[in-house]
């Protein structure tokens, strides 16, 4: 048991080291930006993984919280001259608070009704982002947002951002993994699988959902705030329903209940349009057909496929072991 954990840890360590060493040397200014954006989207998609993967609650709202985090941090640092490190934290807090308040209202609805209500939220918020000029700069957006300055480390190009984002992504991933293994994760899974069992095991179903929604809001807010300072320009067009669909594709492709899966999902979904550039006109058709196949053949995404291959291998090994122990073989 301990050994298995160690092996897992080493595999991840090697993977992360390889990523850090290889990616910057094989990418150019443009392609490293794609990777950076993928990492940012991963952080926001993690929130969806908590809500949908662990808690079974379909939500489209992440993109709105991302917008709230982005505009808050951009405004505070540009016009109120608050240091960027602080404005990002405030961006997270405002996004989390907003998610908490929205959650108190929308989570009174159940299942598909809740999911639909978050679609409306995204439409309302993207309209507010577009039309409320004092906050968002309207259609022109906000330009020349201050660069990120963390004191000890200030990324001054997209490669610097890559290192920073890898670190933030790992921390967020670890937090979500920890959630999965503690009371909140179990409570959420019980809400997902059997609300009545959850209640009779002392789980406050409503509160559990609200807490998860708030965490998802905080993660999306962080993602948005970082985005604002990385690209130094944000506008409403980033925070529309389409982006929301992208998050859902990432989580679905990677594996709805897997942090590592979500990472690969985020990477693939962000990169695919670049790889498939020659087929641009057909991109949406390819996506659509791809999603249908995904749902039919691998509903638990890449992580689900990996897991079933792994268990098959283990079973074979066990069988072989048992046969050897019994002194015969096929």
């Amino acid at each position: 048991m301990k050994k298995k954990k160690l092996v897992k840890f080493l595999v991840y360590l090697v993977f992360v080291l390889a990523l850090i060493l290889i990616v910057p040397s094989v990418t150019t200014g443009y392609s490293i930006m794609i990777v950076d954006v993928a990492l940012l989207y991963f952080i926001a998609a993690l929130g969806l993984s908590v809500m949908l993967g662990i808690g079974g609650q379909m939500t489209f709202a992440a993109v709105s919280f991302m917008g709230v985090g982005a505009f808050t941090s951009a405004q505070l640092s540009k016009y109120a001259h608050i240091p960027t490190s602080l404005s990002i934290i405030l961006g997270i807090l405002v996004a989390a608070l907003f998610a908490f308040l929205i959650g108190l209202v929308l989570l009174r609805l159940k299942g598909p009704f809740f999911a639909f209500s978050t679609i409306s939220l995204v439409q309302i918020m993207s309209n507010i982002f577009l039309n409320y000029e004092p906050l968002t700069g309207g259609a022109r957006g906000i330009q020349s947002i201050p660069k990120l300055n963390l004191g000890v480390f200030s990324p001054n190009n997209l490669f610097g951002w890559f290192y920073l984002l890898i670190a933030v992504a790992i921390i967020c991933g670890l937090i979500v993994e920890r959630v999965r293994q503690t009371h909140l994760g179990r409570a959420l899974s019980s809400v997902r699988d059997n609300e009545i069992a959850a209640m009779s095991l002392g789980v406050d179903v409503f509160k559990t959902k609200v807490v998860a929604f708030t965490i998802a809001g905080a993660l999306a807010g962080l993602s948005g705030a970082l985005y604002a300072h990385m690209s130094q320009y944000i506008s409403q067009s980033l925070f529309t329903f389409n982006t929301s669909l992208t998050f859902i594709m990432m989580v679905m492709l990677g594996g709805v209940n897997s942090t590592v899966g979500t990472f690969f999902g985020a990477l693939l979904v962000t990169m695919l349009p670049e790889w498939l550039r020659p087929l641009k006109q057909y991109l949406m058709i390819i996506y659509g057909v791809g999603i249908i196949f995904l749902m039919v053949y691998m509903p638990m995404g890449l992580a689900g496929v990996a897991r079933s291959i792994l268990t098959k291998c283990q079973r074979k090994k066990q069988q072989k072991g048992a046969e050897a122990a019994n002194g015969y073989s096929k």
Partner: protein
Amino acid sequence: MAIQSENRPVLSLQGVCKAFGGIIVAEDISFDVSSCEMMGLIGPNGAGKTSLLNMISGIYSMDKGRIMFGDVDVSKAPAHKRARLGLARTFQAPRFLQRSNIRDNLLLGTDLADQYTFFQSFIGKKSKDFEEELSELMEIAGFTFDWDDLIAAFPYGRLKILEIVRAMLSKPRILLIDEPAAGLNDIEIGHAVALLKLATEKRGMGVVLIEHKMDMVMNNCHNIVVLNFGKVIAKGQPEMISKNKDVIEAYLGRGYDVAN
């Protein structure tokens, strides 16, 4: 060491009434359960036994009446609050997290015993106290498992027993058990009974046991409440119940022989 039974009841139902449209499932039901007591709740199909359990645990609301848990009036308390006060239950058809492994399913029971907040649980280390208790319970339950086994891979009989184990891990004061013997073979029934006896005799829990298997109820319960069409038609010790004319007519008349 047997824990002395208190005189004051832990669970007390006072005039509980409930109807679903025209169907009356509970009509002025009153009874008490004390710690260390195993109380049988019997009655023909559709008598309202499961509905009553649902009202006690807070899944259904009552139309009228009062439910006391110790000194606390829980009549209007939501289900999770009642659970946190020390009310655990199993279901006629076991309810588990189908997509989770055994670990998460059982730890939910211990979470209820610990009563940590999400944050405390996030930053703290889960105490391992329950492991000893679990191994004792599983010894009585009569099978072992791998922590990472998926719940969906378990046979029905084991799920029913595992649900009792999960409920006991939450260290409740009252344990509500809905038809534990249904779908179990005789050996498994023996294990289930042993678990319930441990709950009452060693852990001091009060147990409400719904069961159609008469010998299991007659041999193990201290008191029995008989329901028919939502009404209590008899209440008392097993010997009295098995001789009660109304009961025999409503229920035992289907061929149960007191002598065996």
